[in-house]
């Protein structure tokens, strides 16, 4: 990866349709960039990245999207980060489709924040492919049309007589006469962007979209060449370490340099109000020298797990109503009432690359390389912290060794910035595992109260889901958002009731905790689906109905219901749902809708000696709309299921005496290969529009397993992680 190279010397001008054309630099070919503005492609990009439709001010340099080099290599600069979800490859497929190039011609480079557009959402919420699907194709098709027009002009032909294919433009009347894209670029100086938006290919003509193209990032990752945030090395770089509080919420009252400055390797010492750290020539020296600081901490509250649970409790009838159909209040006083409550704990992201950043605070500018899901948010945060103009802060995202929501805001970048400002050197801060556990931010704990009214014949007449959750999205928004919204929309993912029940209501209550909580893969999805889909299973039992039929009976005739029905049936059939499982085993079913993607899963389990649960097989049906890369969707589904199983059986962040109990994986184990079941993934998506795949498949995992355990034991498990008695 490298920084945007197109900044030097290239002359940019804005075309009538508002694209940016850069040319005139010897040997550097043509670049097509895109800015805010009125034309459709730009606007769509501006909307998807900036979350706004307003044309903005042009801040040079531009957002480079494609660059054609003389050797016919085409580089696609992307604002979205690669953290294992395969989006660089998926986006390259989408671009190559309209560009009409050979697959091997297209390379992908992570753009720094020096591009013009703002990617306000970061790489999160499974929206990368869905938000860029149309804008990226329009940009690619526009570039292709410009190349065709130039070739036609040179040949003295009409546009339709210049045909683009595999990185070459040939004459339709004399196909042997052809120019490669770079040959077209070479002779041309005066580019114009076509007036009309280009025609996009219909789905039936796709040749890259829908194919399992190999991941572009894997060759470097498998040979150790890929650079992650923890791997960044620049000349003159030194290492930083930061003093940590003894307890959650204990603040630094007084800090003095003490003996720290005399410790071996120490370059500089920062002892300020509320922040103390060391810069040294090695990581070990920096951490060792922390001992030399004289620090006085506030006691901090002795919060315990019981406090977290007490705070995370639904107050009946409180909170923000996020779904209301019919007249739920009245309907929930009639018929046979069924109630149940569920709990999920705090959990760690446990990305195996701890957070890390290199920041170089120079007199004239700030340069940072950060393992972050949101380079633009990091740029703003660094600019604010350092009191520098945003244009003088450039952040480049590295590869991420896992993100899962935790790397939207990377504290180590802010710490490296403070230490670099103090020492005048580029500083790398990479947290150790204990810092991640003890001073991190977690998936919020949740509590759910479900209530339903069953009518004669077992149909659900009314259903209510009341949810209490620690903050998710609020953790990254200005405090005013919490005041305006009242409850956290991040907690709502998967919280509404998808079944066609006449009277429905969902409520969300905000819980303020003494522990930092934040985004986690799928946000509230795993917890909410665990509650709703376990409860659906309980209602099926109450109604005396088989769980699959019971769910199908509560689906409507609309398109979404149809997609859920198809996913449920495909997962059920592939799992052998209708047949008896082998002796000692049972199956459970669950489904969810998230970012418009539908997922259904069947878990097959048995009990082993000493009350251990064995998951033998997980069968999943996933409908993410149009599939860009089938193997990529399978990989995301397999991975989300393993992460979901880890949460189902093992993971719980416990608080004792104001501290996170676990300081490493010895007290917080993750799922391993030995526990991993066979995972069978079926893609049921159709249509012409892709939805998200990074998070949705984690939704049904815990509910499917808990429902299977009920089928096996007759015992209902309403709390994660699932712990069997005895």
């Amino acid at each position, binding site marked *: 990866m490298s920084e945007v190279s197109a900044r030097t010397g290239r002359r940019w001008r804005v075309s009538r349709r508002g694209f940016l054309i850069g040319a005139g630099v010897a040997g550097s070919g043509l670049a097509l960039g895109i800015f805010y503005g009125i034309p459709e492609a730009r606007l769509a990009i501006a909307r998807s990245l900036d979350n706004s439709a307003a044309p903005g001010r042009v801040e040079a340099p531009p957002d480079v999207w494609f660059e054609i080099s003389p050797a016919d290599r085409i580089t696609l600069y992307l604002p979205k980060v690669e953290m294992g979800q395969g989006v660089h490859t998926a986006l390259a497929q989408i671009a190559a489709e309209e560009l009409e190039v050979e697959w091997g011609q297209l390379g992908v480079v992570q753009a720094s924040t020096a591009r013009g557009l703002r990617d306000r959402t970061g790489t999160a919420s499974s929206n990368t492919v869905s938000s860029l699907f149309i804008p990226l194709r329009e940009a690619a098709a526009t570039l292709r049309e410009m190349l065709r027009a130039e070739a036609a002009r040179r040949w003295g032909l009409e546009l339709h007589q210049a045909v683009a294919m595999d990185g070459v433009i040939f004459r339709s009347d004399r196909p042997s006469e052809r120019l490669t894209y770079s040959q077209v670029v070479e002779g041309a100086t005066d580019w114009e962007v076509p007036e009309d938006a280009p025609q996009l290919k219909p789905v039936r003509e796709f040749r890259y979209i829908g194919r399992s193209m190999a991941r572009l990032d894997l060759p470097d990752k*498998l040979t*150790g060449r890929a650079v*992650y945030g923890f791997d960044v090395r620049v000349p003159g770089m030194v290492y930083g370490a930061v003093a940590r509080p003894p307890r959650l919420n204990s603040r630094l009252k007084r800090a003095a340099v003490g003996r720290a400055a005399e410790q071996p390797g120490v370059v500089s010492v920062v002892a300020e109000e509320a922040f103390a750290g060391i810069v040294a020539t090695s990581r070990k020296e920096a951490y060792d020298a922390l001992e030399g600081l004289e620090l006085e901490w506030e006691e901090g509250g002795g919060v315990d797990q019981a406090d977290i649970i007490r705070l995370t409790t639904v107050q009946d009838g409180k909170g923000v109503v996020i779904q209301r159909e019919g007249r739920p209040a009245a309907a929930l006083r009639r018929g046979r009432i069924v109630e149940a409550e569920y709990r999920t704990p705090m959990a760690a992201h446990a990305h*195996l690359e701890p957070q890390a950043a290199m920041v170089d605070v120079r007199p004239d500018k700030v340069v940072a390389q950060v393992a972050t899901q949101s380079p633009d948010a990091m740029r703003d945060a660094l600019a604010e912290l350092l009191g520098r103009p945003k244009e003088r802060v450039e952040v480049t995202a590295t590869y991420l060794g896992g993100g899962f929501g935790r790397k939207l805001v990377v504290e180590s970048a802010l710490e490296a910035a403070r230490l670099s400002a103090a020492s005048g050197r580029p500083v790398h801060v990479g947290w150790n595992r204990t810092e991640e556990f003890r001073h991190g931010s977690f998936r919020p704990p949740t509590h759910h109260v479900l209530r339903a009214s069953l009518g004669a014949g077992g149909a659900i007449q009314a259903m209510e889901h009341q949810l209490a959750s620690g903050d998710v999205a609020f953790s990254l928004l200005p405090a005013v958002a919490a005041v305006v919204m009242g409850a956290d929309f991040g907690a709502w993912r998967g919280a509404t009731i998808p079944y066609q029940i006449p009277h429905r209501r969902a409520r969300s209550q905000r819980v303020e905790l003494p522990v930092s909580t934040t985004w986690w893969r799928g946000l509230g999805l795993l917890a909410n689906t665990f509650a709703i889909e376990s409860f659906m299973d309980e209602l099926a039992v109450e109604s005396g109905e088989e769980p699959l039929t019971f769910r199908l009976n509560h689906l409507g005739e609309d398109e979404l219901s149809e997609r859920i029905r198809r996913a449920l049936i495909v997962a059920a059939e592939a799992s052998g749902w209708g047949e008896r499982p082998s002796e000692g085993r049972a199956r459970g079913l669950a489904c969810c809708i998230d970012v418009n993607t539908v997922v259904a899963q069947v878990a097959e389990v048995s009990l082993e000696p000493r009350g251990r649960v064995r998951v033998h097989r997980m069968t999943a049906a996933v409908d993410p709309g149009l599939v860009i890369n089938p193997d990529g969707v399978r990989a995301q589904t397999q991975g989300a299921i393993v992460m979901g199983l880890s949460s189902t059986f093992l993971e719980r962040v416990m608080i004792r005496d104001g501290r996170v109990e676990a300081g490493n994986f010895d007290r917080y184990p993750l799922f391993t290969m030995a526990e991993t079941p066979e995972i069978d993934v079926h893609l049921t998506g159709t249509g012409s529009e892709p939805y998200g795949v990074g998070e949705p498949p984690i939704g049904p995992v815990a509910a499917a397993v808990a429902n299977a355990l009920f089928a096996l034991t007759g015992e209902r498990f309403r709390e994660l992680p699932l712990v069997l008695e005895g």
Partner: protein
Amino acid sequence: MEISINGDTYLVDSDPSELLVWVLRDELGLTGTKYGCGIGLCGSCTVHVDGVATRACITPLVAVADKEVRTVEGLAETEGGLHPVQQAFLEFQVPQCSWCMSGQMMTAAAFLSRNPDPSDEEITEAMTRNYCRCGCYARIKVAIARAAQLTRELP
């Protein structure tokens, strides 16, 4: 102190108690070996010491004196080539974020050199102390079986 890594000899002036993972990464720039937990549990830092899979985050520099260290950068026999384990991981598109994968591959390569024709159970037993947070376990398992086959087919 002199240490031998991937067939080259390096003169290192780090303290002999410094951990191998940091010497490799921060002193020698061999960042293919990853840090994950620092207590030898997650396996991300696995390298070979005299052919034995070893967790570099709990191995002091002094422990590798007079020994041959191999890292992911030197896993392939030839410059620009791939070890059968790397080939198989590429063929099955195993990694997601890939932070753990150097350790997975080094563990697998050492295992296959002792057991060139393993059963699925033996693969699982050999690999189950390496965490993969992205959950690529099923692919790791089939890729190792494939790597064993590729190795057996080598001339």
